[in-house]
């Protein structure tokens, strides 16, 4: 709610109210107050005893992005109240570059704690403008400030900090781990000699920091030094070294990992999957394809449950490659796992087509979770083992529609003649998806029994089933369907005749042509249109002669279809048949004629097209101009 600046006094008064809700309203009003004192008032609100008011004040300061705010906020870095200090720090970080100047000033505060906080915040902001101020802090008398400065320089990642850090490494022994970390984060190869020296240090913390830093160097030059650590006999150090080699492999070259001890690499990759960021996880999961072993399976199973879809899919792909060797662990994991993990495991198994798991999968066919039952059906279909037909037929009558649908699809993929009755029954299912799945499965099964049943269905009591039968026979497409389809051309239902003629058109059986032509005089225009398509499909270039008689059809859309058909056949002999339609009374026929003439690639059409270029209808003019352009470009 906007308030005029004239109301500032009232707002400030409200800030001192004993009611937190009134103070919160005051903070909210300050968000829109343009008076310069509003910022100072907002900053003081982070001292509010009520947490909600404090957080609202912080949020408002961040939203306002006032350049004056950081200077006020920096004062709170010396507050003895840790809550106020932390809240001020949080706001300063979120204000980002806006805070840099005030923080650089504060980094030279007489109080060393304040200096440390300021340097910490500058590091978190990571703005390069703070570099010189932080470099000065590297020479601070206070050890904590120096350590913070080294860390902040690492976060800035500027190579300008390398030489000062190297110099400080010699003089400020207490800050060596932080300096090494910073050099690692900067990743400048100039730091390598120092890191090499550091891995020989007696100080374990320094050694581990150096190993970690080498992993960030993005250079194969660190490889011999890290490999050298693998023979020291210190397992923890070996692990750290391989962890760093993996990071170098990730950023530079996979070959860095050649000939390393398998068990330790697996351990490091497993750790990377468990604790790394998304990129590292994906790299480690992909890398595990080459480090197959029992130790890798558990972590891949865990990654199957990763909330990130990409990580989960990567784990599934890697695990599927190890499905044979890891089959016992996978089967074990299927028991009592949460539904999502079971589904992911089933997908893993499904992508391998490995029938080893069939018994484990069918044991889930009565799982309480419907998504699991659906996945069971899907995966059984992908594995395609005939021994599981009974389970799929049971799932085909599951109370849940999408489970039935998955089971019917699976039956189709397996090609189960035994299931024909179940599939035909499902054609009457109340759910369209289930009916569609049953139809697809019957088309796929394509056996004599299915053809016989569909042939009978051409006379089914339900006209819809008659139409489906005519379509299905076409999709089955075997030679034995031609005869029933030809019979169906005389079916009393026009939609059946239409489906039959379309199916015959797709059959590529030229012997059907003579039977199809009869339907050019069918009483139903939709049938005549489909007949034109079927004749073109079967008759090829010579079919134009059969189509020309349809140019005089009583139905406008049939004539339109015939004109388009002549264009798609592309036989130049149809030119004289099309020319008269350029002057048809019907706009759509004139457009169709112009377009079809263009497709004949015959320049004899040009004079006739040019005569029509001033047609009263702009759509016709567009089609005519397009046709002229096309023919003239030949």
């Amino acid at each position, binding site marked *: 709610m906007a308030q005029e600046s004239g109301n500032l006094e009232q707002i400030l008064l409200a800030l001192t109210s004993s009611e937190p809700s009134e103070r919160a309203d005051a903070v909210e009003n300050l968000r829109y107050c343009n008076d310069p004192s509003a910022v100072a008032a907002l900053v003081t609100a982070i001292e509010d005893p009520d947490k909600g008011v404090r957080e609202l004040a912080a949020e408002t300061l961040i939203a306002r992005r006032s350049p004056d705010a950081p200077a006020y906020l920096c004062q709170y870095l010396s507050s003895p109240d840790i809550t106020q200090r932390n809240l001020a720090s949080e706001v300063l970080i979120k204000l980002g570059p806006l805070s840099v100047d005030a923080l650089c000033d504060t980094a030279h505060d007489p109080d060393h704690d304040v200096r440390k906080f300021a340097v910490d915040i500058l590091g978190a902001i990571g703005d390069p403008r703070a570099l010189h101020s932080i470099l000065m802090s590297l020479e601070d008398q206070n050890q904590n400030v120096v350590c913070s400065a080294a860390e902040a320089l690492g976060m800035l990642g500027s190579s300008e900090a390398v030489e000062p850090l190297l110099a400080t490494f010699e003089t400020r022994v207490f800050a060596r781990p932080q300096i090494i970390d910073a050099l690692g984060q900067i990743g400048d190869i100039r730091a390598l000699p120092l890191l090499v020296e550091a891995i020989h240090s007696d100080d374990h913390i320094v050694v581990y920091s150096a190993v970690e830093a080498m992993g960030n160097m993005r250079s194969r030059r660190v490889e011999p030094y890290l490999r050298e650590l693998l023979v020291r006999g210190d397992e923890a150090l070996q692990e750290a070294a391989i962890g760093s080699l993996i990071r170098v492999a990730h950023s530079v070259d996979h070959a860095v990992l050649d000939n390393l001890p398998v068990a330790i690499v697996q351990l490091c990759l497993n750790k990377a999957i468990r604790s790394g960021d998304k990129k590292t996880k994906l790299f480690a999961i992909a890398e595990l394809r080459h*480090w197959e072993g029992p130790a890798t399976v558990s972590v891949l199973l865990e990654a199957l449950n990763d909330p990130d879809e990409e990580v989960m899919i990567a784990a599934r792909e890697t695990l599927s490659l190890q499905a044979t060797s890891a089959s016992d662990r996978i089967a074990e994991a299927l028991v009592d796992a949460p539904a999502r993990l079971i589904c992911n495991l089933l997908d893993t198994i499904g992508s391998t087509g490995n029938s080893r798991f069939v018994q484990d999968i069918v044991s889930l066919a009565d799982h309480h979770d419907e998504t699991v039952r659906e996945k069971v059906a899907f995966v059984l279909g992908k594995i395609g083992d005939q021994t599981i037909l009974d389970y799929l037929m049971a799932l085909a009558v599951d109370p849940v529609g999408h489970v039935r649908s998955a089971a019917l699809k699976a039956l189709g993929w397996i090609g189960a003649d035994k299931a024909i009755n179940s599939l035909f029954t499902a054609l009457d299912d109340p759910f369209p998806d289930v009916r569609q*799945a049953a139809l*697809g499965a019957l088309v*796929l*099964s*394509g056996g004599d029994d299915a053809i016989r049943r569909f042939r009978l269905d051409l006379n089914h009591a339900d006209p819809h089933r008659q139409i489906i039968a005519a379509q299905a026979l076409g999709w*089955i497409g*075997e030679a034995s369907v031609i005869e029933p389809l030809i019979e169906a051309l005389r079916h009393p239902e026009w939609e059946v005749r239409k489906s039959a003629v379309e199916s015959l058109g797709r*059959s590529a059986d030229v012997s059907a042509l003579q039977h199809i032509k009869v339907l050019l005089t069918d009483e139903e225009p939709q049938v005549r249109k489909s007949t034109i398509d079927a004749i073109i499909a079967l008759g090829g270039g010579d079919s134009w002669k059969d189509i020309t008689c349809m140019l005089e059809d009583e139905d406008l859309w049939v004539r339109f279809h015939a004109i388009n058909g002549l264009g798609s056949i592309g036989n130049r002999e149809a030119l004289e048949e099309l020319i008269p339609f350029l002057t048809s009374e019907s706009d759509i026929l004139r457009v169709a004629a112009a377009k079809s003439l263009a497709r004949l690639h015959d320049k004899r059409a040009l004079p006739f097209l040019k005569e029509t270029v001033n047609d009263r209808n702009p759509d016709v003019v567009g089609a005519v101009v397009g046709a002229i352009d096309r023919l003239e470009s030949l």
Partner: protein
Amino acid sequence: MEIRVTEHVDFITLSLKGRLDIASSASLKDDILRHVARGQSKIILNLAQVDFINSSGLGTLVSILKEVRLAKGRLVLSNLASYVQEIFEITQLSNIFEIFASEADAQDVFLQPSARVV
């Protein structure tokens, strides 16, 4: 049916031309399984010039897919004509085949950065 084989470093492409039915499907399966036996189990089937496919052809494709998977290979399809695409949708086979609009898209599946062999 004509089958033209193009061998790439990491995969092979079989471009099919003609009818995929009971008459042609057995020879297609034999051809593909011969490649799989030689270790060429990453396969693209380009169906651009398949103008007819029926349930026998589809059944054969499903059977080939299973064999390739068991050999730890990968079979993908590309360039399905609209009629063939339609029949894949009807039979729900689009749920079990990886289908790509173009051969270039299908190739991308196999053109991952080369894996390191230990």
